[in-house]
């Protein structure tokens, strides 16, 4: 048994098998020191999207799970910090970071892992990912506004861009499904790998943090790479055609990553996440005529092409008129209202997921979109866009926002550092 994983290059298109770990890698978790770097031949290349088994590099200038080609599955969890001790919080972030490095490499956590420990002790790793490949697991952490209250001496470090989201017209927020001190977004091509990751991080956190709410998602509703096809949301429409893509490096600096001139220092290279649980009234949507559906979205349902165009990636022409003089893309359509042209050029990197959480007491599917959007400054991006949508979008008849969160996602970690280290130093 070695401490070094087999590089994927020797194991093409197959993930590592999971094994219990002894020694250095495991001890890293036990002591909360991320002394373990996963050697990965896979870098941030579009090819990452193709190999759904392999690992995604955990370390880097930015956190993985933002521009990473969107995986198929989500387990998102928001935590409340229950400890009042700053040292406890720092210790937790160190332990989480070390565990995340192992989890994303497809490894068991702990000194003994899932099955190699003593009979009398509960296994350190819960075990349901044994035998599963890394499955492109990414773990992305963000800090909510409430973490910057008086408890941990962070008030002065709260970024100005980390505002409390305003009330948007029509918001029907359930506080038990909103907000949170810390968010962890786990994305993977295997739902069990994503669930395993959140479950084990929650377990490490008992007594220091408590899960406030969590959300499972499937069928990514956006692509973040040109190598990916555009998926469909539960309205049956292609979603995210014009999303920011990892190939647009200049645009990412402009729209996604916090720049040195933005500050604060600890956020440079990070990004702001807005999460919204958007419930869809799918039963009434499904009774809506095809023409009306397309008018509400502003695109053809089959092709995903802008109305009046043939191909999904054809340019949106907001001046094109029908024979009767009305615009081909209605002025109150979703694509128009959300488009950079009408939002001072603001864009978002969306990586939301569909959800169906069974059904409600009235027999309606509890279904919708768990919207996740990353951006450089929510004050200039999500907030104005959503204000415009909340006021004018004809889609509002079919959706309502029931959960909400905003989080400052720090830059990436290098081996030996931990999530948010600069915030605490």
């Amino acid at each position, binding site marked *: 048994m070695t401490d070094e994983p087999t590089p994927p290059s020797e194991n093409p298109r197959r993930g590592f098998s999971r094994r219990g770990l002894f020694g250095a890698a495991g001890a890293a978790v036990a002591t909360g020191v991320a002394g373990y770097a996963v050697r990965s031949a896979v870098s941030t290349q579009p090819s990452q999207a193709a190999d759904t088994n392999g690992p995604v590099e955990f370390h880097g200038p930015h956190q993985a799970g933002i521009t990473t080609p969107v995986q198929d599955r989500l387990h998102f969890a928001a935590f409340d910090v*229950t400890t009042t001790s700053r040292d406890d919080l720092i210790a937790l972030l160190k332990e989480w970071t070390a565990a995340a490095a192992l989890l994303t490499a497809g490894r068991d956590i702990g000194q003994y892992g899932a099955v190699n420990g003593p009979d009398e002790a509960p296994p350190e790793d819960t075990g349901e990912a044994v035998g599963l490949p890394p499955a492109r697991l990414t773990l992305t952490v963000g800090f909510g506004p409430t973490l910057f209250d008086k408890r941990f001496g962070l008030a002065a470090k709260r970024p100005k861009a980390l505002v409390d989201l305003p009330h948007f017209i029509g918001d029907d927020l359930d506080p*038990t499904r909103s907000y949170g001190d810390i968010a962890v977004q786990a994305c993977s091509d295997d739902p069990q790998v994503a669930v395993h990751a959140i479950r084990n991080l929650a377990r490490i956190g008992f*007594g220091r943090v408590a899960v406030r709410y969590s959300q499972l998602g499937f069928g990514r509703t956006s692509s973040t790479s040109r190598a990916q096809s555009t998926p469909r949301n539960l309205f049956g429409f292609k979603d995210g055609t014009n999303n920011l893509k990892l190939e647009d490096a200049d645009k990412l600096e402009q729209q996604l990553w916090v720049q040195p001139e933005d500050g604060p220092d600890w956020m440079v290279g990070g990004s702001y996440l807005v999460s919204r649980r958007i419930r869809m009234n799918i039963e009434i949507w499904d009774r809506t005529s095809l023409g009306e559906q397309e008018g509400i979205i502003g695109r053809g349902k089959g092709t995903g092409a802008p109305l009046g165009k043939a191909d999904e990636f054809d340019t949106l022409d907001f001046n094109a008129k029908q024979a009767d003089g009305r615009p081909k893309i209605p002025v109150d359509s979703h694509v128009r209202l959300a488009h950079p042209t009408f939002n001072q050029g603001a864009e978002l990197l969306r990586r939301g997921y569909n959800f169906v959480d069974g059904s409600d007491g009235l027999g309606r599917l509890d279904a919708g979109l768990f919207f996740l959007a990353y951006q450089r400054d929510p004050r200039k991006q999500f907030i104005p866009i959503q204000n415009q949508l909340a006021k004018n979008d004809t889609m509002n008849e079919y959706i309502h926002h029931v959960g909400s969160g905003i989080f400052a996602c720090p830059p990436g970690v290098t081996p030996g550092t931990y999530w948010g280290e600069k915030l605490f130093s």
Partner: protein
Amino acid sequence: MSSSLPRRAAVLGVVIGIAALTACAKDEPAAKDDGTGPVSVKASDSACDLSRRDVKSGTSTFSVSNGGSKITEFYVYAEGDRVMGEVENIGPGLKRDLIVELPTGKYQAVCKPGMVGDGIRGDLTVTGNAPAQVDTDTELKQATSSYQRYVNSQAVALEQKTTEFVTAVKAGDVAKAKALFPVSRTYWERIEPVAESFGDLDPKIDARVNDVEPGTEWTGYHRIEQALWVSNSTKGMDKYADQLLTDVKTVVAKAKVVKLTPLQLANGAKELLDEVATGKVTGEEDRYSHTDLWDFQANVEGSQAAVQALRPALQSRDAALVAQLDTNFKAVFASLDKYRDGDGFKPYTASEAEKKALGAVVDGLAEPVSKVAGVIAQK
């Protein structure tokens, strides 16, 4: 009394015997304390006065008389509230003796009027020959004997209080039965894992209505609870009251002679917190009376007693875990204190948010407690 008992060789914290209960007049003057005889403890609702606070290592006797209006308990704690010896259920106007073997060291003598909270505490110093160095086997042996003593004293009190409860039920005294219901259950809940090890006694005594197998009759505490709180009556309850006392007496007899291993202690400590997490936090346990918080507190106390019995063994193997356990036990008790009402608890009708907060603090304790068994198992 103690002088007629043989001295045992340096086994820490073994209660050699508890003198018979005797009534004593409240104004009886304290025996003159020449530093050799029993330590007299004058307990009241607001005081816990010892005739002296330093004793010689070896066997000590504490004569505890309760001059207060509340039932009290007397404990001798080592560091971290490890129970070296205790007497439970000392009613007003009663006197009971605690005979306990104490090695050299610093202790606390504690009275708990109303049997709640941290109690009234004072230092107790034991001087004399330094204790022999104990090896780990001895540490574990002492852990089990210390915990068995705890189980024994809880069992005695369980039988006494259940007898009182059953008597009130059969007398048709609804108010008194309601008052005694959570008190008698406290002793049950503290040692529940031990009771559960006796097979079908646990369901007979403690089944909720939805736990009952089809074809078997629902009996026990909760059957009577339903009559008391839903019907506000004891009608038809006599046979269940008799059955409950019979079953409790069987458990008590078994509990007094049960032999436990250190691993059973550790696992029992975890199981008690499992009980809290699944039954008490949710309010499922005492769904008619809403006295869940009494059970909650008792489960955590029982868990703590088992963990503290293992404390010396844990301390030498994983001091960091001991520190964490101390902190997290304190946190749970502090959370429970918010729901105190006099000597008891407010009815448990907590909001989802309150339940969630209690659940989180229990999770925080249960996780390190689940690690105790593995540490104890290390050779």
